[in-house]
């Protein structure tokens, strides 16, 4: 009994000592935090293949001596920057794919300019994605290619795949991709057509400013930012934690404006009429029937996705017509499934397992 008490007092003293050291480090490193720049991100060497409107197609330089025959085109979400997939060495999905021998391209986005306010879903899915696919084929000399789409990038990819089944798309991988917009409960409520005059908003603003996008994501978890800052203070002594916090925080606030026409169409046709899930979306005269997607298909969902809840993405696997199709539900949230520890351990190897044997 007396021994236990002595042990507890010893443990308590050592805890006090540890916390005192951390408090000193917090003060010292806190000064460094406010006076140093954020870590560099998106630094994997790459070449710009084409810049057109808000679309940017990049080709990453290979790191292996031998590549898989089938190149990979990553299609990024329209609301955020692509460097979430290339945060830092060891935390880069692109670096991982290059290291596994893939020839990697990425289609990412810049904010649309005021005069590009009328760009719509058809422009993004059937023009920019289609142009990128043709460029990938021309650059590599291969007739077929794979697509990996993230979030809204996944949505654009499935639309492209459904309308263009015969243009060489060999494998399709999407993660955290919304299809049933009525299941995105909070967003659907905020877009309620009884209260939301989307035409007035688009006609007044032109493009939807990034602050609207960023704030709407933040509102889904209103306490998260305050709690994250408290945890940052608590972990200020931990360099790895601080570096990771800075990278994710910078990416989170670095949202992109959305083209007004695209936003209007997403609200009217996807939120109000749920046309993607009902296979009734028509773009440039083509009906988007997800049943026409027949190539091998992998859909990865995040168990704790608060932006695209599983109910909103889960119907996709049933809607695509592929005979070879897999659905994976992995631990993590909307962002951590793509970047961070969960991604490194779970999502990236799963994508490699799916693509490797289908990329020869």
């Amino acid at each position, binding site marked *: 009994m007396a021994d236990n008490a002595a042990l507890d007092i010893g443990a308590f003293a050592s805890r006090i000592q540890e916390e005192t050291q951390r408090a000193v480090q917090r003060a010292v490193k806190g000064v460094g935090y406010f006076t140093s720049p954020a870590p560099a991100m998106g630094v994997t060497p790459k070449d710009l293949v084409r810049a057109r409107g808000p679309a940017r197609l990049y080709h990453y330089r*290979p790191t*292996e001596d031998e590549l898989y025959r089938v190149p990979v085109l990553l299609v990024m979400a329209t609301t955020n920057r692509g460097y979430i997939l290339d945060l830092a060495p060891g935390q880069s999905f692109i670096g991982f794919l290059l290291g596994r021998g893939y020839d990697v391209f990425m289609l990412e986005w810049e904010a649309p300019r005021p005069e590009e306010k009328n760009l719509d879903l058809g422009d993004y899915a059937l023009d920019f994605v289609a142009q990128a696919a043709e460029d990938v084929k021309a650059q590599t000399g291969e007739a077929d290619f794979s697509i990996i789409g993230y979030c809204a990038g996944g949505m654009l990819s499935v639309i492209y795949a459904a309308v263009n089944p015969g243009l060489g798309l060999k494998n399709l991988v999407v993660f955290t991709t919304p299809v049933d917009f009525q299941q995105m409960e909070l967003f659907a409520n905020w877009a309620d057509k009884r209260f939301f005059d989307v035409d007035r908003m688009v006609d007044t603003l032109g493009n939807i400013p990034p602050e609207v996008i960023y704030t709407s994501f933040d509102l889904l978890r209103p306490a998260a930012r305050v709690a994250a800052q408290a945890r940052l203070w608590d972990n200020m002594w931990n360099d790895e934690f601080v570096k990771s916090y800075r990278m994710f925080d910078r990416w989170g606030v670095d949202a992109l404006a959305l083209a007004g026409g695209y936003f209007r169409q997403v609200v009217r046709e996807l939120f109000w009429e749920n046309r993607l899930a009902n296979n009734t979306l028509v773009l440039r005269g083509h009906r988007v029937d997800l049943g026409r997607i027949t190539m091998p298909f992998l859909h990865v969902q995040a168990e704790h996705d608060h932006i695209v809840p599983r109910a909103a993405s889960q119907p996709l696997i049933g809607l695509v017509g592929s005979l070879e199709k897999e659905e994976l539900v992995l631990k993590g949230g909307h962002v951590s499934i793509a970047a961070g520890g969960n991604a490194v351990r779970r999502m990236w190897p799963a994508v490699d397992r799916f693509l490797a044997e289908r990329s020869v």
Partner: protein
Amino acid sequence: MAEPPNLDPLAMWRDMLGQWERGVNSVANQAMGSDEFSRAMHQMTAVGLRLQQTVGEVVGKSLEALNLPTRNDLISINERLSRIEARLDEIATAAPAPKPAVPRPPRTRRPPSA
């Protein structure tokens, strides 16, 4: 055997932070899922948009009186430039994308199990 109570004040603070975050998010999500919230949010947005429209009109008229270009004038010029860019894009699209300058490794890789 029952776990002894954790008397570490910082561990307790971290637990409380997690509970506070979950609680606030849950209560706020319930409130934000209501019709009342949606109505109020869009009423506020509408006021902001009306204000922005009015200020834009007033500023536009003032600039016009001073014989200066308005934002819409600049957007019109940009639109013309965009049309020229689009035309150049069409020409560039007709030509295949440039081949990579550096030679690429052979595309003969096989999966590890093959």
